[in-house]
C-alpha cells in the first residue's frame, strides 16, 4: 500500500509540529531549556515525516559517525533544532528524533571517554619517550 499524496491534514499536522518546535526554541533561547521530540512515537506517515524534514531543511552543520550502527545528525535551517537519525547494523532506522539544544549530547565526548583518552595519550607518549631514551642510550648520549 503506497502513501497518499500530502493533503490538508498532513500540512496541518506539520504546521502543528512546527508550532511546537517554535515553543521549544523560544524556551531554549530565553530560559536555556532543551527539548526533544521522538518522531517514531508519533503516528506520522512517511509523507508527513518527509514533509516535516523538507520544511525544516538543512543548516550549516552536519555530522555522521558509526557507533553500534551508523548515525546522522544535522542542524536544520533553524539553529538549535537538530535532526538525529540512528541506524542499526542492518541500516534500519531505529531512532528518529528532533532535539532542541545548542549542541546535541551525542556529539559531545563523555567524561569517561575524555579521561580514557587522556590516559591513552599519556601512555602512548610514555612509550615514545621510552623508545627515544633507549635510542639515545644506544648511541652513547647526545
Amino acid at each position: 500500500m503506497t502513501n497518499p499524496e500530502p493533503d490538508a491534514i498532513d500540512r496541518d499536522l506539520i504546521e502543528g509540529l512546527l508550532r511546537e518546535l517554535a515553543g521549544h526554541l523560544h524556551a531554549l533561547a530565553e530560559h536555556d531549556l532543551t527539548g526533544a521530540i521522538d518522531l517514531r512515537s508519533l503516528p506520522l506517515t512517511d509523507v508527513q515525516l518527509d514533509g516535516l524534514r523538507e520544511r525544516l531543511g538543512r543548516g550549516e552543520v552536519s555530522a555522521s559517525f558509526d557507533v553500534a550502527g551508523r548515525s546522522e545528525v544535522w542542524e536544520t535551517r533553524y539553529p538549535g533544532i537538530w535532526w538525529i537519525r540512528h541506524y542499526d547494523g542492518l541500516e534500519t532506522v531505529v531512532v528518529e528524533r528532533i532535539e532542541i539544544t545548542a549542541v546535541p549530547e551525542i556529539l559531545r565526548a563523555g567524561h569517561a571517554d575524555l579521561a580514557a583518552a587522556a590516559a591513552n595519550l599519556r601512555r602512548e607518549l610514555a612509550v615514545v619517550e621510552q623508545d627515544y631514551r633507549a635510542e639515545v642510550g644506544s648511541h652513547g648520549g647526545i
Partner: protein
Amino acid sequence: MAASETIGEELLRRGISRRALLKYGAYLASLMALPPLQARAMADALAAARRQSVIWLSFQECTGCTESLTRSFGPTLEDLIFNMISLDYHETLQAVSGEAAEQARLAAMRENAGKYVLVVDGSVSTRDGGVYSAVAGKTNLQVLEETAAGAMALISVGTCAAFGGIPHAHPNPTGAVPVSAIIKDKPLINISGCPPIPEAMAGTIAYLITFGRLPDLDQLRRPKSFFGDTIHDRCYRRPFYDKGMFAKSFDDEGARKGWCLYELGCKGPVTYNACATLKWNGGTSFPIQSGHGCLGCSEPDFWDKGSFYRPLSATTAHPARTVGAAAATGIAVGALGAALARRAKHRALTGGEKS
C-alpha cells in the same frame, strides 16, 4: 568481563564510547514511549550498572519466543543488549548440555541469589504432578519453584507462560497453567504474544537493568509501553473503519484496496499489543498489513474464543446492527478521536529540561 566491572567500563575497555549508550538510551526511550529527554539519564544508568544475570527456563513451548528474541534488532544493537546481560542458562542457546548445563543453572542461582532475573517461556504442566513435561529428571513445576525462589523478578515471555497459551487450550490435557498461577510472591511481568514482539522482550529486560524496577504494567501485568493501546487504536487501516469501509471477503475490492478487516474476524479492537507500530521483521510488516486480521494472540485464551474469522460483533445477538452502529459511531468520533490521541501522545512525548 570481570564481575565487578560496570557496563560502561566494559564498553570503554573495548573502545566503545558513551555515544553507544546514548544511542541505546534514545532507542529504548522511543521503544518504551518514555520522555525522549530521559535518553541521557538512561545512558548514565546503564554505564553505571553491572551485567544482569538472567536464567531462562523453557517449559511447554515451541521455541518461537527464543527465535523472536534472537532476531530483536540489527547486529550491533543486539551486541549491546547481550553485553548488558549474562545469560547464565538457556537450553537452546547454551553450549553445554546435560549435567553441566544443570550445574550452570545451580551455580548462577547460588552466585546471584536474590539478584537474578528469571525468564520463562512455555506453560507449566500441573496434572498428575506435572509429569507431562520434565527436564533432567525434574518436572517443569519443580524447576520453576526451585529457580523462582532466589529470583529478583520473573518475566513470563509468550502467551503460554503469561496466560497458558495453546497448551492451556481446551481440553488442556497436561493441566497447563501460566507462571503466575504458581509463583505468587515475586514481582512478575507478562510479555504476551505468540510469539512476543522481540523489542518488547529486549526493551523490558533493558528497562529492568537501567532502572532496577518494573515498568508500569496493565491489569494483566504487561508493560503499558508495549500493551497500552489496542492493535485497532494504532492500525493504519483505522481510517477505513472510521468511514465504515470493510472488506467482506479476502479477495473482494475492499481487501484489494486495504480496507478494514473487522468483518473478516480481525481481533484488533480487543487485542493489546504493539504490532501495528513496531511491526515485525525489523519493522517490515505485521499481519494486518499482509492482508489477514489480527488473531488476538497476546490475549488470554485466544485459541478458545471461536473462529479467527468470525467478526467480533457476531457474538452479539444482532451482528449486522452492531457492525452498522460501530461504523456509524466510528465515522462520528473517529477523526476527532484520532486528532486528540495524536495531540495527547505528542504532549506526553515532549517536554522541557534545563540543559
